[in-house]
């Protein structure tokens, strides 16, 4: 009961705030949402792995970077559009993720979780440097006309392409939610996440489930890598910051809370852009990300204590 009321109040406050911002500084809302879409759609696959396989994949951003390079090569070689190339690239990245799982992560599953963290740290170094050695640190970028698609409303002209990421994030959330709560295989994945021994006792193939989840998440991040090159330049270190950002967003949402990642991203995207819109607060836009994270986490821990 109380929970529901809180949620309603929250929604109301957010709606009012959104309307105010929309009329006062519409670009804050537009760019805030666009940033949020990108943050969320990169963080969600990581959240999936963390929630089920309990691994903080420090090579998450590197998987995306790898997929972006693959897309770049494919698009250059066959003249494809990334939106077409994303299908094969997602499949290949899924296979790559599965292979990484089989060869490394799986062997470390029985070790303490920290081992897996450092394992993925090693993987991230190896991948980044391998790409660096073969492609150099020089950046690459393909440019597509549709990326500059633009809308004019009165005085205001703004890019609309990046809303693609908002759509993708929403689709990911809905899709995963349906999968995890409505399908048996999804429930089995959750069960494995909570108690692998218990899961095997009821006939669930734990190893296969981990492998599948890892491949699924890798495929999703592979797709994001393909689309990432439409928006950004790529270079060996391009993925790194997104690993940290995703990790932060997941912590803000709470492990296992995938819709929460979207919520956290929107909160961050809009507040960042809000601060960036004013001369006096520009320098603080970066700090808001981290202050918000701490506030939300601390707030939740205090609330959790009380309940």
């Amino acid at each position, binding site marked *: 009961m109380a929970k529901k009321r809180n949620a309603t109040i929250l929604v109301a406050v957010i709606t009012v705030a959104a309307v105010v911002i929309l009329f006062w500084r519409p670009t804050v809302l537009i760019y805030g949402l666009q940033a949020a879409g990108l943050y969320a759609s990169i963080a969600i696959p990581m959240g999936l792995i963390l929630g089920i396989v309990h691994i903080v994949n420090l090579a998450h951003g590197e998987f995306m970077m790898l997929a972006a390079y693959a897309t770049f090569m494919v698009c250059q070689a066959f003249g494809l559009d990334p939106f077409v190339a994303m299908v094969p690239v997602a499949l290949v990245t899924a296979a790559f993720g599965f292979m990484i799982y089989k060869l490394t992560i799986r062997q470390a599953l029985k070790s303490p979780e920290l081992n897996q963290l450092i394992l993925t740290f090693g993987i991230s170094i190896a991948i980044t440097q391998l790409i660096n050695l073969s492609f150099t640190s020089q950046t690459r970028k393909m440019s597509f006309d549709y990326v500059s698609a633009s809308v004019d409303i009165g005085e205001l002209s703004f890019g609309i392409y990046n809303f693609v990421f908002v759509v993708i994030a929403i689709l990911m959330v809905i899709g995963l939610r349906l999968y995890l709560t409505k399908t048996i295989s999804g*429930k*089995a994945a959750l*069960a494995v996440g909570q*108690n692998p021994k*218990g899961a095997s*006792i009821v*006939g*669930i193939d734990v190893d296969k489930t981990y492998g599948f989840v890892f491949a699924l998440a890798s495929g999703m991040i592979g797709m994001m890598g393909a689309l990432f090159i439409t928006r950004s330049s790529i270079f060996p270190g391009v993925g790194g910051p997104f690993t940290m950002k995703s990790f932060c967003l997941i912590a803000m949402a709470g492990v296992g809370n995938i819709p929460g990642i979207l919520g956290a991203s929107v909160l961050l995207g809009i507040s960042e852009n809000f601060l960036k819109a004013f001369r006096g607060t520009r320098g603080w836009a970066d700090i808001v990300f981290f202050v918000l994270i701490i506030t939300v986490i601390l707030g939740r821990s205090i609330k959790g204590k009380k309940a």
Partner: protein
Amino acid sequence: MILEVKKLETGYGKLQVLRGIDLSVGKESVGLFGPNGAGKTTIINAIMGIVKPWAGTVEFEGKSIGGNPTHMVARAGIALVPQERELFPGMSVADNLELGAAYVPRGKPIMAQQLEVVLTLFPILKERYTQLVGTMSGGQQRMVAIGRALMANPALLILDEPSLGLQPSIVAEVFDRLAILKKDIAILVTEQNVRESLKAIDRGYVIENGVVLLEDTAKGLANNPHVISAYLGI
């Protein structure tokens, strides 16, 4: 014979626990008794593939399952109520029960039917159908664990100390239920509550120090002086 264990040896790390166990279960209910640390749970772990046998064989319905991965053993038709329950704490009672059957060929087709059986046996689970299992009391969780195993409609049901933490009236009901079930399926049960469980079993083994000390019918055990002094005192 539904289950046939021969010369089974195993242990943990370097520690040998079982030193050549022979036991069998037909369409009947068989008890495993013995002091703490005798190796009862270890026998069950070896059957389920949770630990790998070092030596000896495990056959289920005529096929060797020794060393098979746990999920394959479960799918073949053996359901386990583990001593430590091993539930999915963050999922509802409903989901825990559903997963008991979902991956087992024998259980899946008659899921609805089995659910009815479980909810009748433990009405509290119907009341708490959507509660997260992790927030339930110790005894309630034991009921979920037993219910989850029943959902699988197994050919062999293994219960590792099922009465642990259950209130007396429910203990009685569980053993009544086992007494009915044993007509259709094989049951292997370990118990410290020997007096209660003797009512539900046909035969029993006493395990001590990783070997079978004696084997007898329920009646025989009830009259065995060693059993009386060690297991039936209270």
